[in-house]
């Protein structure tokens, strides 16, 4: 069916067929208005096959209204009017559904309607049809999208449409995209010169379509010059791809590292500075994540902003829980670090069950605001997901803030004084009880803030804390207890090590290797990456 010599992209055959059909139809007769109405009615059918056919025939219609219908369908706005077997556009406002005529845009009043369900094949067809129609759209962004969509489509119709558009295209970016699409299409040309020119045009292109189209040429082009050029271009592309892959791995590692740092940094305070083995740390993270959920539930229309609001809220909620834990339990256990482990383990069980009982044993939905979704496309081969990028930045900010608090504020001074010599600090007039409570509250609050970030990446449920507690301890111990920089460097190192090993070792083995590495590392440096110094640290 696809007559092109080269492999085509997944959705290309349908698109090719469509456009072919389109050209044929323009030669004969267009779809008349009555037929458009009849075709529209087909969309109400149950069978996806029938619906797909309907989409295809609307796509080929010359009728100017076809595009708006296709767009409405793609946006999920087409409904079947219950009772009246008729396809309408539905717009929900609150609980009522306003119905419009899809052909005329006329308001039809309110009514009950059932949405027309799409399947993937229909979505692909719609996307192609809309792209083909928007290649000549006045909106440059739409044209760019359409040109990108048509990358790798080597059908003559597509080539012709692209070439036509190129002649009148003014926008540089769109021109580049069209040139690229044309070059890929021309790789299949009969004349060796055209092919050679196309190969040259594809130099350093990171689009997978370009690479896929070059592969067969490099393997078996009849013309040796083309073959050599294609081979050379491919090699260059592969090298570029390899560098991009390395950059990607580094980002993955930093991102995993930032998650580890966020999870561990609160512990670096409660455990590192105060010496409390806080097994409930994971549950404080969980409370932060649940706070995010509650804030989002309280402000349903404000998803884009509520996350920002959740940060202080989570800090306060987890911080208060932390202070409560410190005042009621931990303050009786100073100097007995191992017993804090037992008591806080008990607390962690209670907190888990608390959430199960009062919220739900199931996971809850924490939505991603729009600015946390999607990715930043640096080039066709390298995209950084926004949520991870922001979390990486956020982790660094939290780290910096903590550093400032501990280094530059009165509280920080007191915290350090108490952690170094409790008796002396008290003698100097530091209210050590208050400092203990605030320090623990700070560590707990930071855990809560970490929970906000983690809620954007993973499950929010009663068990989520358990997933982080062990890794957190590993990071703090690996970095060196009592040293915030150790936690940062430790977390990032483990994250990158894990991600570098993952491609060849697999996720599980990479993690095992990281654990073994930590065990061996501690043999070499029994006090971690950045050991506390001085006589006080010994003994």
């Amino acid at each position, binding site marked *: 069916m696809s007559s092109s010599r080269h*492999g085509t*992209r*997944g*959705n290309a*055959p349908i698109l090719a067929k469509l456009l072919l059909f389109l050209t044929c139809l323009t030669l004969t007769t267009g779809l008349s208005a009555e037929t458009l109405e009849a075709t529209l009615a087909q969309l109400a059918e149950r069978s*996806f096959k029938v619906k797909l056919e309907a989409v295809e025939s609307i796509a080929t219609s010359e009728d100017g209204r076809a595009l708006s219908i296709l767009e409405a369908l793609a946006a*999920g706005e087409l409904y079947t009017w219950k009772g009246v077997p008729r396809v309408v556009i539905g717009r929900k406002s609150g609980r009522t559904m306003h119905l419009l005529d899809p052909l005329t845009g006329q308001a039809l009043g309110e009514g009950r309607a059932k949405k027309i*369900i*799409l*399947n*993937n094949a229909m*979505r*692909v067809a719609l*996307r192609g049809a809309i792209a083909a129609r928007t290649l000549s759209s006045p909106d440059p962004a739409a044209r760019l999208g359409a040109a990108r969509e048509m990358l*790798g489509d080597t059908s003559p119709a597509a080539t012709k449409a692209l070439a036509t558009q190129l002649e009148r295209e003014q926008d540089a970016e769109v021109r580049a995209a069209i040139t690229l699409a044309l070059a890929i299409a021309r790789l299949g040309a009969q004349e060796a010169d055209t092919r050679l020119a196309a190969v040259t045009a594809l130099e350093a292109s990171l689009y*997978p*379509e370009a690479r*896929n189209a070059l592969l067969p040429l490099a393997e078996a082009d009849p013309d040796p010059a083309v073959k050599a050029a294609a081979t050379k271009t491919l090699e260059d592309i592969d090298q570029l791809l390899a560098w991009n892959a390395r950059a*990607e*791995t580094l980002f*993955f590692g930093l*991102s*995993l590292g930032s*998650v580890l740092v966020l999870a561990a940094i609160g512990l670096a305070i409660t455990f590192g500075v105060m010496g409390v083995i806080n097994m409930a740390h994971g549950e404080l993270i969980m409370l932060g994540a649940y706070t995010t959920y509650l804030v989002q539930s309280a402000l349903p229309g404000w998803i884009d902003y509520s996350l920002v609001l959740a940060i202080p809220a989570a800090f306060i909620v987890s911080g208060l829980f932390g202070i409560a834990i410190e005042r009621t339990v931990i303050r009786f256990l100073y100097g007995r670090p191992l017993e804090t482990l037992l008591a806080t383990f008990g607390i962690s069980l209670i907190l*888990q*069950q608390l959430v*199960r*009982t*009062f919220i739900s*044993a*199931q*996971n809850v*939905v924490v*939505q*991603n605001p729009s600015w946390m*979704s*999607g*990715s930043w496309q640096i080039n066709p081969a390298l*995209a950084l*997901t*926004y*949520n*991870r990028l922001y979390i990486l930045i956020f982790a660094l900010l939290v780290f910096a803030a903590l550093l400032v608090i501990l280094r530059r504020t009165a509280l920080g001074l007191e915290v350090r004084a108490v952690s170094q010599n409790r008796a002396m600090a008290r003698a100097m007039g530091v209210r050590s009880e208050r400092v203990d409570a605030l320090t623990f509250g700070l560590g707990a609050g930071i855990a809560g803030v970490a929970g906000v970030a983690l809620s*954007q*990446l*993973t*499950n*929010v*449920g*009663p*068990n989520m804390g*358990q*997933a982080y507690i062990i890794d957190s301890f590993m990071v703090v111990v690996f970095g060196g207890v009592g040293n915030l920089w150790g936690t940062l460097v430790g977390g990032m190192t483990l994250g990158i090590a*894990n*991600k570098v090993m993952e*491609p060849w070792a*697999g*996720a*599980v083995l990479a*993690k095992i290797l990281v654990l073994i590495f930590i065990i061996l590392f501690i043999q070499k440096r029994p006090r971690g990456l950045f050991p506390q110094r001085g006589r006080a640290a010994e003994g």
Partner: protein
Amino acid sequence: MRISSLIRQVVLGSGLALSLGITVPGHAADDTIKVGVLHSLSGTMAISETTLKDTVLMLVEEQNKKGGLLGKELEAVVVDPASNWPLFAEKARELLEKDKVAAVFGCWTSVSRKSVLPVFEELNGLLFYPVQYEGEESSKNVFYTGAAPNQQAIPAVDYLMDQGVERWVLAGTDYVYPRTTNKILEAYLKQKGVADEDILINYTPFGHSDWQSIVSDIKKFGSAGKKTAVVSTINGDANVPFYKELGNQGISAENIPVVAFSVGEEELSGIDTKPLVGHLAAWNYFMSVDTPENATFIEAWHAFTKDSKRVTNDPMEAHLIGFNLWAKAVEKAGTTDTDAVEQAIIGLETPNLTGGMAKMLPNHHITKPVLIGEIQEDGQFAVVWETEETVPGDAWSDYLPGSKDLKADWTAPIKCGNYNTKTETCLGSEGM
């Protein structure tokens, strides 16, 4: 409601605790029929299993409204095996030996079932297992009301092939169900002419949360020019971060559709589904199925949980079918005696929620329709394909070399869970 029930439980419980010594054997009251509920209410599996506990409680309540069974009231005995496999075995023994329950509804994941299996066989109890599983088992004492691989995996792959998929990623959590399913699928795909280099198999640990590298690999694998799909046997918890990463890395269902066997309405209720529209799942039931039976069931569920937002899912339907079949069998046999019920239940039918009938087969599996749904924005699935008739569950896969000659048949004269059709011998899994 939760708090008051909690207080009631604590008060009731402390009273019970005094009377229940470990050495005092439990007293089986004669005026009720006890039904055991063996689902984790704490630990990692609680996320999935608490719903099933509630389902059984609802079914028991409804049965009692209808007058119970054999003129007796049903009484649910709930225990918490806490996602701990040895504890599953202990609790199973407790239910059977101490509480003398007539049947147990429970377990989720094969390891919990494997852990309790010897206990049910030793004490001759009845277990209804409601979750899809890898097959390769048939016990006299267990009824498998979830899907076997031939009722879920293979039809899903057929559907995708029909949609033009040529390249396959089989991604799963590293445990028996994905391993077996992928093995079966690999054999099946190769038989259909898929080349080795067009299959990518990847396993991850339980609760895996960092999917960056794997999703990026899938993306690269899928950009080689052939239509690619992911067949996901990723378990429970790991799905949320997986789908989030898919969405963020821009893998849409139009490019690389993901068909999942362990993601249902319940799992989706923890995910923002907008970026996932079009990804697929294969099940035997979807909440969105438009039948009167299903509407009634959903309504009852909402009334029971006093929460109109609670979703229903496939394992819940499996419990409903299992429970109804058991109730029918008890009435047919006129007793709750294990052997009588076991014989009576084979061949019985009950309506499922998708408009067909579920029949208990001699191999202790049931007939099920296979449905393929695409994820919608509202977290529901829209059915895009379904089998025309129900598919009988197959205990032993035809695509695995070790089991292709095996079959299970618990009716006379074979009465065997692993009967070798070539040598015509039973390999040991016999009734007592």
